[in-house]
């Protein structure tokens, strides 16, 4: 390989858990650095870059300032990768979108709310063109490495577009629904290797919905498990408010 791709890592509204996961690549960090040069990363280093080959961007866009900054990142980056549920879907931040924005602002900031302009929490793709997505809350190293190696090879990363159930079944897990738990696996995009159900936890849908999700069938299952229709919707909205409202596909 001739020149190493110059990469930057950026964050917006989110818990920074995905970024922390970058730092957790203890075993692979040296391999990764073989292939790229990190030139901008607020969480780990000083300095800014004018031009980037790949920008990895975490967090949702929730203030006017965010909008300005994401445009700037897009302008200077050849490839833009949305990292984590907040950047890809709006994340749990987007739960506020289903309520009046002023009400939310008041609840959070109280009498000082005028100091804090706020917008509905948006995924990056609602504002700029996103080339690739690394899903999940937080993003997994497994998927980061998959996208990363694809980009280094110069090929399009493949996105799983089938249910978490597929990966869960391949691992011969006991179905958590069988144990009486609620699980959004049947309509949630795989790619996490069914991480949560493997550890006996329900899938809360952090990776977004599959293409053409069968929401009515999913709601029917949740209702049969004892949820009200309203509760069933809320479960699905936790990570997918924007997708359910048509903001993202």
């Amino acid at each position, binding site marked *: 390989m001739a020149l190493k791709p110059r990469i930057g890592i950026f964050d917006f509204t989110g818990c920074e858990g995905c970024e922390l996961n970058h730092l957790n690549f203890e075993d692979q960090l040296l391999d990764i650095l073989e292939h790229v040069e990190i030139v901008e990363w607020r969480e780990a280093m000083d300095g800014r870059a004018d031009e980037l080959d790949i920008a990895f961007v975490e967090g949702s866009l929730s203030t006017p300032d965010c909008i300005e900054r994401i445009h700037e990142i897009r302008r200077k980056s050849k490839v833009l990768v949305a990292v984590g549920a907040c950047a890809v879907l709006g994340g749990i931040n987007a739960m506020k979108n289903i309520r009046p924005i002023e009400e939310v602002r008041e609840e959070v900031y109280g009498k000082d709310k005028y100091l804090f302009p706020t917008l509905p929490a948006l995924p990056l793709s609602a504002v700029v063109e996103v080339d690739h997505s690394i899903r999940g809350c937080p993003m997994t190293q497994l998927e980061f490495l998959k996208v990363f190696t694809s980009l280094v*090879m*110069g*090929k*399009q990363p*493949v996105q799983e577009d089938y249910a978490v159930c597929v990966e869960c079944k391949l691992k011969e897990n006991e179905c958590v629904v069988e144990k009486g738990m609620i699980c959004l696996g049947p309509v949630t995009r795989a790619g996490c290797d069914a991480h949560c159900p493997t550890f006996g936890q329900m899938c809360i849908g952090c990776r977004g919905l599959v293409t053409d999700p069968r929401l009515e069938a999913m709601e029917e299952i949740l209702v049969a498990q004892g949820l009200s229709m309203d509760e069933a919707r809320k479960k699905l909205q936790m990570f997918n408010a924007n997708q359910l409202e048509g903001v993202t596909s």
Partner: protein
Amino acid sequence: MTEHKLMDPAGARDLYLPEMAEIVAVKDLTDQEKLYEIVLPEGRELGHKPGQFVAVSMFGAGEAPFSVSSSPTRLGSFELGVRKVGMLTEMMHRLVPGEKVGIRGPFGNGFDMEALRGKDLLIIAGGIGLVPMRSLINYAIDRRDDFGRLIICYGSHSDAELLFNDERKLWDQDPRIEHHVTVDVGSDEWTGNTGVITTLIPRLELDLSRTVACVCGPPVMYRYVQLALRSKGLPEKEIFMSLERRMKCGVGKCGHCQINNTFVCTEGPVYNGLELKSLQEAL
């Protein structure tokens, strides 16, 4: 209940191991399609029939099926026409002569050339469907006396997307080839036929007792081409269509290309109209 016999693995082949074959020439067909000339190890012949396909491997990107575009009558190498549509083909488009790709195959039934002997061949190709049909066309050209008339109807979306222009010029000049071309949308320079491919069919004079139609194109084309040919009086069993399905194995195992009870990779991709009628998922 029958007990199925388990075969001895000594009699089984390694179905999934490709042969590393060398690309000896790359030609731009349009800005989206390239033609690759490929030679197998030790110059061995591919030994394919027109209408058959191979699986091309690009390590790291995977495998995909491509119809062979060259005729088996032309020895020493074979050709594949590749449109840039996805990850694997995008990577293929970066290949240069001297580089190697993995090849498995040839797979599929192909056209039954013995059954076509002595017939008038009506070739109908839509868009990139000309790539596989070129194998059949050149076969008929090289064994011209084995066949009756050779009628080629070729339709393309626009004149900029027309393929094999040099070769088709030769077809135009050959008195024993009837070559008709139409485009859906012509540019200002286009002076030929305009309209979808089915508009070429009504004006053909066919000897129905000896005509066989061989069709390849986008899925949407087949229904209308069949209707047009049927209304000319051509029986369904004389209309052969080459289907396209995504496949992972090419050897009848992975299930991806299965339509109803047939595996396109082993029993197809060429089916006649009668066979397709019973395959409800085909078109």
